[in-house]
């Protein structure tokens, strides 16, 4: 692989830069389905749903992060993943995510609110990220 063919990745949450570095492949879940991004991908701006982002770094390591609804922008081998919340799998507090999920389900049963559904989706995304990282 030529040295130019790597992706500069930035995973950004609303209040901080979660991860930045070089990668060879990214898999993210958009509203249209899972999308894989390799170097020299065409410029793209797409919406993501709550889910897991899978990144293979240039050192051939893989890390997983949970993101909530945000978007993915790809241009000139620069990839920005923006989400209001984003957590790397090792930062996720498993107990807290489970508790959040339970609480959101309970709140959802009462009135089926939109906020509860969003909280549940975010909690599920975190749980999935931890499972995938194992």
């Amino acid at each position, binding site marked *: 692989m030529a040295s130019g063919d790597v992706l500069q990745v*930035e995973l*950004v*949450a*609303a*209040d*901080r*830069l979660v991860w930045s570095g070089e990668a060879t492949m990214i898999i993210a879940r*958009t*509203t*249209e389905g899972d*999308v894989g991004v390799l170097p020299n991908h*065409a*410029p*793209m*701006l*797409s*919406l993501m749903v709550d889910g897991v982002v899978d990144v293979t770094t240039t050192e051939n390591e893989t890390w997983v992060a949970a993101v909530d*609804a*945000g*978007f993915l*922008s790809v*241009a*000139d081998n620069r990839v*920005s993943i*923006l989400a*209001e919340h984003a957590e790397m799998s090792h930062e996720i507090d498993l107990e807290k995510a489970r508790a959040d999920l339970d609480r959101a389900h309970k709140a959802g049963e009462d009135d089926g609110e939109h906020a509860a559904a969003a909280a549940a989706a975010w909690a599920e995304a975190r749980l999935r990220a931890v499972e995938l990282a194992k």
Partner: protein
Amino acid sequence: MAVSLREYRAKIKSVESTKKITRAMELIAASRIIKAQQRALAASPYSRELTRAVSALATFSNVDHALVTEPEVSSHASILVITSDRGLAGAYSSSVIKEAERLVEKLKAEGKTVNLYTSGRKAAAYYKFRNRPVVQSWSGFSDQPTYEDARAIANELIEVFVAGEDEHEHATHEVHVVYSRFRSMLVQEPTALRLLPLEVVEGTEAPAEGDVLPLYEFEPSAHDVLDALLPKYVTSRIYSALLQAAASELAARQKAMKSATDNAQELIKKYTRIANQARQAGITQEISEIVGGVNALADATAASE
């Protein structure tokens, strides 16, 4: 004299304890301001990327969106005033409120009805005291706002902006934000800015001439992406306003507490001088009384001999 000496000593003691408090507050503000600045810095990649994406969308698609369309007639305006929750920050809150009042006057002169929204207890108290209606107030986070706080405010403001006049009683055609911009530790300036309708390309963030934005593919469609992006953009703008306001508040508090500490020091010096004078006067009087007594005694013995 002895009484006033005691009084002065008591005054010195009380000023000394005041000084200790203001000094502690100064140090706390100083340590928090660094964290506040770091938070503002940490949030900047997000707003930078978001601005980039929104500019790309605005440049390469001709879609119209409710949040960017200039209304034909504008008769209702909303103002969000961002102040602190607590006082003891010098003129911080009052200067922001003054700026807001100026804006209210200006909008009223243009014949618009103004709805007020406040963040921070100081602004809420100001309008409550003057019996002026505030549509909604948020408080409790002025020195460390979170993204959730910004989102709560943004959702409300977007709702009233998007709603038609007959759908929402506070429907509005434009939204302004008044907050204190953090320029440096010494300078914070109250700023009014129009949030909605959005002016997408910010003067500071606009891509340079040569920096041509790539031809993006939008998924699912340009309109859907814009739909999702613009509310986030608004939230991020409010978040950054809140963060700047928090840093400004702490800087203003540090400055105010610094001068309070200095003043207390001056006062202590002054009182110590007066107390010393009073003590010296007391001693002088005692000595002259003793000398007078001894003289009188000597005169008496001399006379009897």
